[in-house]
């Protein structure tokens, strides 16, 4: 049986080292080996976006990344969005805007939305909808999600 592989990576700002099988996805290792269950599995083939994480500055579906590919990379999950006990504006706006119902797509959407706001401080509704098209939500119809991303953009601009 092939050996496990040792991987060093930067996860939510901290250096992490783990052992994994080459066949294990980043999603699987985050959840089962590293205990970061905030990242969700909805389809395991890249079509729902619930497992979205930041991977070297881009959002990816972590079910379509092998854990071994994380060697030397930087990863941010939903657990890494808040600054300590201080919620990120996108998190605060999702709460105030009732942008979540069941909440299972929320972690992936928050990671994706934050990535958008980090590169575009004032995205149009169309841009938000395009950017989030890989993140399925079945509860909300997206209305309150899009509005909450817009609200977070305003909030972040005021803070600047």
């Amino acid at each position: 049986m092939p050996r496990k592989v040792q991987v060093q990576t930067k996860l939510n700002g901290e250096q992490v080292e783990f052992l994994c099988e080459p066949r294990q996805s980043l999603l699987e290792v985050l959840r089962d080996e590293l205990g970061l269950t905030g990242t969700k599995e909805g389809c395991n083939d890249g079509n729902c976006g619930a497992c979205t994480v930041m991977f070297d500055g881009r959002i990816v579906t972590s079910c379509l990344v092998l854990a071994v590919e994380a060697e030397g990379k930087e990863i941010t999950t939903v657990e890494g969005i808040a600054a300590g006990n201080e919620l990120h504006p996108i998190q605060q706006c999702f709460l105030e805007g009732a942008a979540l119902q069941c909440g299972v797509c929320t972690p992936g959407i928050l990671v994706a939305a934050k990535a958008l706001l980090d590169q575009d401080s004032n995205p149009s509704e169309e841009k938000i909808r395009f950017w989030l098209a890989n993140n399925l939500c079945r509860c909300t119809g997206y209305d309150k999600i899009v509005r909450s991303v817009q609200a977070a953009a305003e909030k972040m601009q005021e803070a600047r």
Partner: protein
Amino acid sequence: MSDQSYEPSMVLATKTFDVVGTRPVRHDGADKVTGRAIYGADVTLPGLIHGAVLRSPHAHARIKSIDTSKAEAHPQVRAVVTSADIADAGDKTVDLGEGLTRLAFIRNNVLARAKVLYRGHAVAAVAAASVHDALEALNLIEVEYEPLPPVLTAPEAMKEGASLLHDDLTTTELGKPTDKLSNVASHFRHEKGDIEKGFADADLILEKEFDTSTVHQGYIEPHNTTALWNNDGRIQIWTSTQGPFTIRDTTAAILEKPVSQVRVTPTEIGGGFGGKIPVYIDPVAALLSKKSGHPVKIVMSRADVLEGTGPTPGSHIKVKMGVKNDGTMVAAQASLAYEAGAFPGAMVIPASMCVFAAYDIPNVMIDGYDVVVNKPSTAAYRAPGATNAAFATENIVSAMAEKLGVDPLDLRLNNASKKGTRRADGPKFPRIGCVEVLEAMKSHPHYSAPLEGPNRGRGVAIGFWFNAGLPSACNIAVNADGSITLVEGSPDIGGTRTSIAMQAAEVLGLPIENVSPSVVDTDSVGYTAVTGGSRVTFATGLAAIRAARDVRDQMIKRAARIWGVDADTVEFEKGVFISRNGTENRMTFAELAPQLAATGGPIVGRAGVNPPGVGGSFAGNIVDVEIDPETGKVTILRFTAFQDAGKAIHPSYVEGQMQGGSAQGIGWALNEEYFMNPDGKMMNSSLLDYRMPTSLDLPMIDTCIIEVANPGHPFGARGVGEANIIPPPAALAHAIHNAVDIDMRRLPMNPVAVMEAIWQKNGVTD
């Protein structure tokens, strides 16, 4: 009525409240935006191993043999189970709160016995050290099948000589058992007035046939369960479910355990919409745990979810309606044939209760057929059955308006059901909001806004869902700092912890932050029926109100004791206890709370309800579309959703239900379907090809909440979870008709279907 909760003289929604009607942040919110909330798949236990389920590759086949020896020999495999590990249910029946069900149907769906009845039907299961090993071991199980011809639609299954799914299923004809072996489990009828006479009186009669595809609830979180069969014989289950007590009772029945030996902990749940009511993998994980001595977790794959869990029925519907030239509807007839899937129980009874419910028609006849086919055993889906039915009825109502040259909303208003209208299935309506919803639609700016440009059209439709009551329990404990902890048993899918807590806070005059609500396991609260039927805010909310009143009454006695006055002289207003007996005594809730221990001990308020006075809810849509006449693609330009909420306890969550239901209705209307090949294989069992709407496919969904207080609830609340999914397909069909003059009578109305209808209209043969 004898039940005190039914208070016919109760509030109208014009009344204002301190907490009810506000928009506080949900109590579980922070956990859900930081990734801390624990959903079923997040559960872990010492020694946990992983299960996987082997599913049938055939839509219909006899199981000749199952050989698990190779799988058992796999070094990483800890246990293998098949149907042989579960006792034969015989003709035992169970009552899971939704009427009597044959246990064998549920049990044989959990693990196939003798026959597989759909592709994806569970046949065996394996537990191993890792998911990868378990999946690998599934390939080592050898099953010998004798394939049989599948029947995939209701009309096909109803034909004489159709291949039969069950050797022992006979038709119940108009309430009476027969000995006719058939795929039709039952045929029932509702009659009102004289249907012949009704049509004879009509100046205009329209009759059409409609087909709707099987669709799935599409929750983003796959089914999951973690089970531990303890050495003392007790079973613990952690699972994402809408009904922990249903899972407990079904699992106990299947495994022949007393319910006291089974404890189910509902985890956070990633959507359900009716699909997470039935039991699938919980008894299987429990058996794997018993055999292996380890706790076992099973998480379904997306394909398992689509092929192995209950979608909602496809249907074949005939509707005939008659109207007079003055716009009075005089007769309506429907034949509803719904696909139950592998086992009886298509959602055709609720369909029959909703198909004409919006209209006051003197002569009605409704025939319903519950038909088994070789597709997954169907489950509830948000107003189950009603969306299919409204797609048919609303098409004809709008067509009548067009032929009579009257406004489609006016025709509906002229015939709208109201208090006292007798439904075809018997009962008269209590106070309902059908007229108010229609009036709100008519006066909404969207309805009068100009819609210019070619290939554009506007559509309207309405729908009714009766909602459910059912049992709920709630306990409230008073803390010394004047806060309360509220314990209930309704899994929270959309913020109900908070909408329930708000109702207790309203009664006790507390700020919502002073209420700490929890959804607890089946050992920790009284029986509470499923989170379904739009019942939680209504029924569990009512339990919370009653428990809060119990707290209030007990605290009044304590205040009286402290003041040495008669309890009758003590009143409670907005969180303050007042005795005006001579000298006025006042004490706030927070001042009394720390004195409870010394005045007789802690106070726990409790309530268990099974409330009548359920207020049905009407919903309506106005939708504008543009069609690409060269591709048949429908683009939604504007969408407004209307619904009677009775009293919106938490308006943001009411809007959320309306927007979510609308989005699901839109997906059902335009793209979603079980695309089956002739062998009964679902060809699109992934979230890529089972096309649910993405953020880019929808516009903003404007909402208009109508509040016609429900006399059956102290604050006037009506359940709002379901009715909102009913009108979208019908409203979109109407809009498409007005845009390009085609009549869409089949769901989904996807680009191919629209294009073919356009070709047909233009006489294009190729």
